[in-house]
């Protein structure tokens, strides 16, 4: 394994940890808003790290570009959908959790 491989492995593992944490949050957090918080973190940062890790292994700049594009799209969709879900929940009158 080269230095590049170690670097991408580290990034991939870090990304996986973010996903794991996000999933845990999704399962354990008390209401829809906090769960969204956990989920979007995992999606955005976790996927970003994984994409970064994978781009080190990419054969060409075009592939790396595609990976970047995928990440940007997920960012856009994730943020919008999280907003829509939260707005829908508010409209339905679901209260925000307080300790």
């Amino acid at each position, binding site marked *: 394994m080269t230095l590049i491989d170690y670097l991408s492995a580290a990034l991939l593992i870090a990304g996986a940890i973010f996903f794991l944490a996000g999933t845990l949050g999704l399962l354990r957090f008390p209401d829809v808003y906090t769960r969204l918080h956990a989920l979007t973190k995992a999606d955005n940062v976790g996927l970003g790290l994984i994409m970064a890790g994978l781009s080190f292994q990419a054969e060409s700049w075009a592939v790396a570009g595609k990976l970047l594009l995928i990440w940007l*799209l997920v960012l*856009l*969709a994730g943020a*919008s959908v999280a*907003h*829509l879900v939260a*707005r829908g929940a508010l409209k339905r009158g679901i209260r925000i959790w307080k300790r």
Partner: protein
Amino acid sequence: MEALTLLEWGFDGLLGLGLLWLAWRALTCPELFKAIVLFIAFGLLMALAWVRLDAPDVALAEAAIGAGLTGALLLAAFAKLSLVTGHEELKPARSEKNRIRFQHYWMPATTLLLVTAGLFYVILSLPPYAAGLSVEVASNLDTSGVSNPVTAVLLNFRGYDTLLEMVVLLLALLGVWSLGDTTIHREAAPGLVLDTLARVLVPLLILVAAYLLWVGAHAPGGAFQAGAVLGAAGVLLLLSSWRPHADLIAWPLRLMLVLGPAIFVIMAVLLYLTKGQLLEFPPAQAGILILILEAVATVSIGITLAALFLGGRPRRGKGQA
């Protein structure tokens, strides 16, 4: 190497059991909404399984159509169902009746277990290696006009199936339309975010569809995947309260819907008249002819899928006449 196979087995086992578990939960969890969400998740795992099985074309089709559009259709139907029945469907309590039922069905359950065991035996009795038609596909790929074997089978070797399949899609829409109309009118603005998302994503989705269509000749992709992406763009537009202009919903819409199967029929006849067999592509021109066929089909598929999502036959609203 040893560790790798162990890892692969772990992955396969998790994926397989995950599929079964999700299917089971989608069928048994008491809340219908959850069941639909679980089914969509099931579709996404299926896409992963297709990738694992070296079937990227199927994976794309599954993710776009099997999970994506079917999911959108199910969710839309669920929402309408809640309207029709007055939210009764949201939480059907798991009543005593349900539990009695479960005991009531021990006989089909046992029979099914036996059938499953029998089918397991049948599957395991198959030879471990079989080429199927892969040799024939590979040796005729050169004259098919494309280099992606799946596209070659879909559009050339078994193009007749695909012709009929295009008609099935159109027919489903005719069936849906014959059940009723929906009035077309612009609803209240859905909010800035969805609007912006649609504005950004729709052009991008169209671009992706064109890319998938083009790349389908030599890599995973093709008319159905591209059409599904186009359909998704349509669904997004419909969700953000965009409605086709009143003048477009009469014959222009019908023409676009028919164009996909129609181009197949027209090409089938032309190729019969020139080559002597139905849908027989001349090897030299096969590539360009298939591309034309796929391009028209993609647009038609996209519009048909979006129309299926909308539901009934669109009609002009009274305020717009």
